C-alpha cells in the first residue's frame, strides 16, 4: 500500500503542516514493497509447523501408499475410475465430489464464524508452502536484517551463490510438488520410472512443470500478494465475521499510549500503556500490516504477532495477551471466558453446524449404503417393438452393468411387471473387476398376455442380482425401471 514516498501523500503530514493543495501523480499500479518477515517461534508457530508437517506428510506421502496391488488413492482420468482406498468411484459418482465441496465450504464458514481465518493462518496451501519456502530462505540468506542487507548490497559472488542456492532449493521443492500432484493421476511409481528414463509424456511434463512453477511462483515470489489480490475467500470471508468472531486483535485500551520505557518504569507516572512500541509485531507479519491499526482484510490470522508480543510481554514482566485471539466484544467489554464461550452458540454458528452435520451424515450414509454395482437401462430406439416366433412380442434393451468392486462379479438379469415376461439372457453375466459391460437384452411377452395387457407402453422392472460367492448370503439386488411397448 505504501509506494514511493515521493509520489504518495501522507495525509497526516499534510494536516500537520496545513499546506496548500499541491499536484501529485496518481498511479494505476506500483511496485509492491518486499516484505521481510522476521522468524517467529512460540505456541502458535508450533501449531503452524505441526499443520505444515501434517498436511505435507499427507500430500507427499499418500500417492506412495499401496492397496490391493494398486495405488491407494488414484484418479485415473483416462479410464474414468477413481480409487480411494477400497472405494472405486465412477464418473456417475460425481455427486460425492459435490458433497465433499459443500462439506468443505460449510466447514470453512463454520470455522470462520467461530474463530476467523483459521484456514488462512494454518492450513491453506499458500500459507503452508510460504512457511516452507521462508524456512528455506532463512537457511540460505538468514533472518530479516541479514536478508534486507543482502538485498540492498551489491551483486557479488556471495550474494549470487546464496540467491541461486535458495532458488535452486525452491525449484526443487516446486518440482517435487508438481511430481507428487501428477502422481495422484498417473501411478506415481511408473511416473517416477519414466522421469528417471526421461520418458515422461507431454501432458505429464506440462502438469509437473505447471504445478511446480505455480508452487515456486506463489510461495517464493507472490506470497501475501495471493492473499491480498487473488484469493476470493480472503475477500468474502468478512461476511462470515461478526462481533463475536475470534480474531487476532490488539488490546488498545491496555496498550496505549505506547512508548519506550525501562523495565522498572512506573507506568502510572509515565502515563504509558503496555505497548513498548518495539514494532516486532509489524516485523513478523507476513502480509506487512500493523495489527495495532485494528482488524484489516490483509490479516490472514497466522498469530505470528501474538507469539512475538507474548515474548516481549514476558521480558517486560507484563501479562501476556496484549495481542491475542479475542472477539471484538470481548476486546472491548473484557468478557469472562464463560461469557465468551456462551456467545459461540449464536444462531449463525448453530445454522452452519446443523447444515454441516446433516450433509456429513448424508454423505456417510450414502457411502455406507452404496450399491456394489450400478445398472443403466437404455431402450433400443430403432424399433419400438417386434413380433418374433409364435407371435411373441419383443422389446430390446441394453443394460449397462458397472461393477464397482475390485473382484470379478456374476450377475443374473430378470424382468417383472408383465405376466410371463422373460429375458433372453441365459445364465449369468460376468463383469470384470472395476469394469462396465453392455448386455443386450430382449424381453419377450407371450401374445395372449400382451393382448390382455393391451396396446401401448407398460412399466416393467429389470432386476439385476449380484450373485454371492458366500454360501447362504443373499444376492444384492438392484431394480431399474423401463417401459415395454405392445404394438397395436
Amino acid at each position, binding site marked *: 500500500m505504501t509506494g514511493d514516498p515521493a509520489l504518495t501523500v501522507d495525509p497526516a503530514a499534510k494536516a500537520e503542516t496545513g499546506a496548500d493543495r499541491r499536484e501529485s501523480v496518481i498511479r494505476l*499500479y506500483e511496485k509492491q514493497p518486499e516484505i521481510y518477515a522476521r522468524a517467529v517461534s512460540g505456541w502458535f508457530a508450533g501449531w503452524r509447523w505441526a499443520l505444515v508437517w501434517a498436511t505435507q506428510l499427507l500430500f507427499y506421502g499418500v500417492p506412495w501408499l499401496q492397496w490391493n496391488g494398486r495405488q491407494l488413492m488414484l484418479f485415473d482420468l483416462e479410464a474414468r475410475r477413481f480409487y480411494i482406498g477400497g472405494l472405486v468411484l465412477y464418473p456417475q459418482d460425481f455427486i460425492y465430489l459435490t458433497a465433499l465441496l459443500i462439506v468443505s465450504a460449510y466447514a470453512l464458514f463454520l470455522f470462520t464464524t467461530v474463530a476467523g481465518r483459521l484456514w488462512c493462518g494454518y492450513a491453506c496451501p499458500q500459507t503452508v508452502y510460504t512457511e516452507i519456502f521462508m524456512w528455506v530462505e532463512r537457511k540460505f540468506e538468514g533472518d530479516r536484517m541479514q536478508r534486507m542487507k543482502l538485498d540492498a548490497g551489491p551483486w557479488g559472488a556471495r550474494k549470487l551463490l546464496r540467491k541461486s542456492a535458495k532458488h535452486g532449493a525452491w525449484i526443487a521443492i516446486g518440482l517435487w510438488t508438481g511430481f507428487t500432484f501428477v502422481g495422484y493421476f498417473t501411478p506415481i511409481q511408473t511416473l517416477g520410472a519414466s522421469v528417471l528414463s526421461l520418458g515422461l509424456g507431454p501432458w505429464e511434463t506440462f502438469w509437473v512443470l505447471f504445478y511446480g512453477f505455480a508452487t515456486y511462483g506463489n510461495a517464493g515470489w507472490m506470497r501475501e*500478494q495471493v492473499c491480498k489480490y487473488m484469493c476470493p475467500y480472503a475477500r468474502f470471508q468478512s461476511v462470515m465475521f461478526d462481533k463475536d468472531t475470534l480474531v487476532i486483535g490488539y488490546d488498545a485500551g491496555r496498550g496505549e499510549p505506547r512508548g519506550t520505557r525501562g523495565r522498572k518504569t512506573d507506568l502510572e507516572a509515565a502515563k504509558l500503556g503496555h505497548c513498548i512500541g518495539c514494532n516486532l509485531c509489524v516485523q513478523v507479519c507476513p502480509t506487512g500490516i500493523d495489527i495495532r491499526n485494528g482488524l484489516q482484510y490483509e490479516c490472514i490470522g497466522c498469530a505470528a504477532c501474538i507469539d512475538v508480543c507474548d515474548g516481549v510481554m514476558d521480558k517486560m514482566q507484563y501479562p501476556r495477551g496484549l495481542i491475542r485471539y479475542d472477539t471484538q466484544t470481548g476486546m472491548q467489554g473484557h468478557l469472562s471466558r464463560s461469557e465468551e464461550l456462551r456467545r459461540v452458540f449464536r444462531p449463525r454458528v448453530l445454522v452452519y453446524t446443523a447444515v454441516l452435520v446433516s450433509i456429513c451424515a448424508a454423505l456417510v450414509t450414502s457411502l455406507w449404503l452404496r450399491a456394489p454395482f450400478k445398472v443403466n437401462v437404455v431402450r433400443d430406439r430403432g424399433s419400438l417393438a417386434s413380433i418374433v416366433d409364435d407371435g411373441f412380442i419383443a422389446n430390446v434393451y441394453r443394460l449397462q452393468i458397472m461393477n464397482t468392486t475390485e473382484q470379478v462379479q456374476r450377475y443374473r438379469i430378470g424382468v417383472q411387471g408383465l405376466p410371463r415376461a422373460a429375458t433372453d439372457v441365459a445364465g449369468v453375466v460376468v463383469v470384470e473387476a472395476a469394469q462396465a459391460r453392455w448386455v443386450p437384452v430382449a424381453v419377450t411377452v407371450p401374445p395372449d398376455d400382451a393382448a390382455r395387457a393391451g396396446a401401448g407402453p407398460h412399466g416393467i422392472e429389470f432386476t439385476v442380482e449380484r450373485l454371492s460367492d458366500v454360501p447362504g448370503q443373499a444376492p444384492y439386488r438392484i431394480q431399474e425401471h423401463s417401459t415395454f411397448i405392445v404394438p397395436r
Partner: protein
Amino acid sequence: MHSGWAIFIAAVTILSLVACVILLVIASRRQVMSDDNTTGHVWDADLREMNNPLPRWWMWLFVLTVVFAAVYLAFYPGLGSNAGTLNWSSQGQFEAEQAKARTAMAPQYARFVAMPAEELVREPQAMGTGQRLYLNNCAACHGSDARGSKGFPNLTDKDWLGDNSLDAIKKNIAEGRVGMMPPMGAAVGSVDDVRNVANYVLSLSGSGHSDVAAQLGKAKFGTCAACHGADGKGNKTLGAPNLTDRVWLHGGGEQAVIAMIVKGKNNVMPAHAKVLTPEQIHVLGAYVWGLSQSTPVAAK
C-alpha cells in the same frame, strides 16, 4: 466465412488488442490535484476515491495477456479466416487423435486379423471389441440383440440372404448391400393372379393361405422362379430370399406379400468402409458371424 465478415472480425480483434494497450498507457499515469491521497474525484459531496494502486505484477499480467493474444493469433485461427501458422483445426485434431488411437490398438488388431472367425469367437477380448463396434455401428438398425426388425434382417438366425462366410459378411459391412425386388404386378397378371401367387408363396412355408388360390397361383409362380428358384428356395448369389421358410423380413401374410409383388422393394444396407477400418470390419464380421452359430458367443 464470407471475406467481408472475415475482414470485419480480424479488424475488430486487432482494434480490441490495440485499445487494451492504449487503455493501459492512458490510465497508467495521471496528474491530479490532491492533498489527501485521493484521486480528487468527489461524488455526492462526500464520496471520494482513494488512490489505491494495483500491484505492478498485475499490470504485467495484463501486458502478458495482450502478448499471449498476439502469439495465439499468429499460431491459431482467430483473425477472420486466417488459418494460423500451425494450420490447426478441430477436424485435424480429431483425425490426429483417431490416428493415435489406431496406432495404440494396432498390435491388438494385428493379432485378431490373423485369426479366422472360428478362433475369434472364442476370444473374449475380440468379442468384447466386436460387441462395442456392433452396438455403436449396427444396433441402430439391427437392434441391440441383433434380431433386427421389419426391413432389417435378423443376424442371429441361420437364414442368410447371401453367403454367410466371414468374407461375405465383411464384404457386406464394407461395401453395403442392395436388396432389390422389382415390381412384378404387371408381369404376374391381374389382381386375382397376384393374390393367387401370393397364396402360393405363403403355402410354400406352410403359412396361412387359401389352398384353392395357391393351386391357381402355382402356374403363375414361373415369373418368380427366375430369381427365387422353381422350388422357391431362393438364390443366394442373387440375394433372392428363401420363400419356403417362415422368415418374413418385410412382413408376412397375404397383404404384405401382395404389396411386395406389386410394388417391389429396394432395401439398402449402407457401406461402412469409410467408417470402420479393415481390421475393425474383420473383428465385427467375426462377431456377427458368431451371432448365428449354435455355440454361444464368448462375450454373451
